């Protein structure tokens, strides 16, 4: 039994804390940022039955397209736009589900090595078509993948919104097909939106305290605890940190313990947030559970163009989920430097107003706000952008992909780690298991 300090109180950190506590360690969780109760993602069964809510239809556009968990029902709706697309939808869902199935398995273990023979064999077991799909589809631009299957611009545009979510990329960028699959992981066939999970139960039975960590203490190359911003020292032989690896290795650990080249690499992990979040209070509850205003794939691409040059999209991609008479809105693209809410709010209201009951109140959180509130670096909920070069064995850096750091007893478990946000607690689960193995 040893003293374990878990820095951060996101789902990943909480899952790691619980597993370590179950293994008999004395665990303290240091909560640095505001807590989430509801998190978007897939809660694997291994975490013990967290409540997931899924809007159905999971996607609804203002042009009347509705996609449901029921593949046939979706096909009917698609049929109003294109008979050909409606016919292809079930097969598309089937092919994507196979690939997502492989990701599901990969996500609940430490990332495979790039040259892992077992991984190679597992991939070969997908058969020729599955393998080709995997190797061809993952690096593809979502827009091209969808172009291969469908003709309806409305359908393609709406799906593109999910393929670039929280990514500083447009649907024409290679690797966004992977991002679309990531959104599909853990969801029923034909659903490309993660559910919303109540993560509050993860906190029960854990010792938690609110504090800011100023330093992770290291003695002779091994962790000895952490020093809080108020100067208090918490001794521990194991520290599990959920913060961005750049902060953990580059700021919290004093220089000299870790290879400066690794620290440099950790600092330059790309973490640009690209979305603002908003909560709208309405006069009355809307008639629908979700509303996605994306336009065509080109509209999404144009929305992305702005952020490349540090501007807010003229016509942002807006995705709203109803919560009674309120809406939780995801608005993309907003540059990570954006701090001014008025501009964002104006665009949000302009786009949304025609489609929703009268708006009573709007509160917008910019990437800067999100960083302050949740500790998301630059407002990026995945901490490390989920692009192909920062996924799987590359996440967040190949040297850190095993959750272990070069400092003995210091582990990483946050959203920056494989598999990233969206698979609730999986990084914590994988981290705790890696720790138990070693």
């Amino acid at each position: 039994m040893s003293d374990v300090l878990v820095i951060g109180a996101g789902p990943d950190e909480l899952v790691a804390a619980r597993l370590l506590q179950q293994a008999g360690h004395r665990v303290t969780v240091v909560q640095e940022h505001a807590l989430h109760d509801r998190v978007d993602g897939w809660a694997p069964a291994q975490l013990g039955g967290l409540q997931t809510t899924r809007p159905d239809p999971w996607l609804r556009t203002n042009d009347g397209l509705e996609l449901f968990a029921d593949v046939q029902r979706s096909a009917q709706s698609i049929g109003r736009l294109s008979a050909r697309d409606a016919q292809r939808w079930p097969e598309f869902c089937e092919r994507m589900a196979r690939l997502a199935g492989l990701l599901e398995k990969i996500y609940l273990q430490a990332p495979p090595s790039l040259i892992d023979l077992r991984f190679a064999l597992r991939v070969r077991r997908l058969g020729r078509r599955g393998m080709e799909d995997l190797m061809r589809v993952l690096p593809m631009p979502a827009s091209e993948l969808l172009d291969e299957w469908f003709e309806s611009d409305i359908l393609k545009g709406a799906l593109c919104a999910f393929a670039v979510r929280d990514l500083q990329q447009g649907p024409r960028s290679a690797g966004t097909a992977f991002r679309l699959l990531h959104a599909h992981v853990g969801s029923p066939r034909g659903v490309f939106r993660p559910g919303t999970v109540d993560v509050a139960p993860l906190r029960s039975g854990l010792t938690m305290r609110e504090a800011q960590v100023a330093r992770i203490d290291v003695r002779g190359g091994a962790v000895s605890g952490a020093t809080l911003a108020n100067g208090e020292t918490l001794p521990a032989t194991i520290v599990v940190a959920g913060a961005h690896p750049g902060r953990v290795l580059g700021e919290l650990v004093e220089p000299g313990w870790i290879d400066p080249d690794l620290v440099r690499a950790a600092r330059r992990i790309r973490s640009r947030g690209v979305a603002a979040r908003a909560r709208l209070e309405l006069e009355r509850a809307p008639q629908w559970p979700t509303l996605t205003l994306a336009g065509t794939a080109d509209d999404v691409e144009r929305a992305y163009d702005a952020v490349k040059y540090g501007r807010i999209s003229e016509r942002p991609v807006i995705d709203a989920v109803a919560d009674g008479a309120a809406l939780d809105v995801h608005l993309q693209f907003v540059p990570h430097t954006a701090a001014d809410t008025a501009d964002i709010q104006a665009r949000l209201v302009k786009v949304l107003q025609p489609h929703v009951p009268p708006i009573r109140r709007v509160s917008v959180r910019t990437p800067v706000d999100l960083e302050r509130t949740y500790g998301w670096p630059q407002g990026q909920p995945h901490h490390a952008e989920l692009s192909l070069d920062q996924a799987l064995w590359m996440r967040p850096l190949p040297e850190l992909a095993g959750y272990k750091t070069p400092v003995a007893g210091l582990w990483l478990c946050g959203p920056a780690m494989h598999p990233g946000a969206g698979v609730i607690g999986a990084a914590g689960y994988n981290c705790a298991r890696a720790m138990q193995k070693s």
Partner: protein
Amino acid sequence: MLKTTPFHARTAPLCVSHAWRRWAGHVVASSYELTHEREYHVIRAAAGLLDVSPLYKYRLRGRDAARLLDLVVTRNVMKAAVGQVLYTPWCDHAGKVIDDGTVARLDEQTFRMTSAEPSLRWLEDNAAGMQVEITDVSDSTAALSLQGPMSWPILESMGAPALKYFRLAAATLRGIPVTISRTGYTGDLGFEIWVDAAQALPLWDALIDAGRGYGIMPTGLLALDMARIEAGLMLIDVDYVPARKALIASQLSSPFELDLAWTVNLEKERFIGRQALAEEKARGPQWLFVGVEVDWNSLERLYQEVGLATRVPGAAWRMSVPIYASGEQVGYATSGAWSPLLKKYIALAHLRAQWAKPGTPLEMEITVEHKRKRAAVTVVKKPFFDPPRKRA
């Protein structure tokens, strides 16, 4: 275009040999006279004046300047006194040498670091979160090296303060504010004088004027190369490959392998490469950097066999020459020279540790009349030449 140093207006007309050499993107005289011999002897007998401005120079200032340097280099900078100069290598995390140079403590919170390779990025990257301002002063600071037994009398005549070995002080020479350090690359009594680039020419003139009676002479890099080999001092890119340029692992060297064990201060809790160096120390280095002396009789015999008088290199050489022990290659020499002073053919060599003990008889490859032969050599202690005046 290549850069010229702030002294170029003086050195160019003096360089009658028109022999220039590149050094860190600058042109510097190889030798001023048609041959470099006299310049070499000036270093050992009078005072050679060398333009060493191409060195990279950084000023580090701030509360954490000492902490940063202490983190980067292998020696203990926290303990360095104001006015002290440290010669030190610095390593990557794997304990392999990136570069070597000097760290001078100008005051409590100000240091000057010299290096052979540009080092701004490395310093800045390791300074994250520290209060230290790092300025590249390579171009704004000119430097002259005055080396040889007469160097002190010249400076003394100009009113310079007395300095101990590896100490430095601010001074004013003929009205020109300078910093003088008792350092050099010749293994002799000598000083380096650091001056604002705008004052470079007046300083040159003042030194030449003051040194006239003491045999001062502008000296080029060829003479310096011979002197530094006699002093057993290694040269980057010649005697070792800096870690950042190594293409394969076998090209890397640790400080232990470069005979710099004395600079590795493992008592410091943290510095870059410490863990790897501690492990290497426990294990013992696999290679050592030593001096070897060619056995004159053996050399003479090789030449006699073909009917020639013995020949020795006229200038220092820089190449890789195999060294053997009972027929098997156990190392390689990387620089060598005929020492006109010692009347010995000497070389600096990397040897596998078990062959590196002083006194070990070995063989070095010598090409005699187009044929590769082996001359007897003996491992000796460095430096080959170590006059008491160097530290006195």
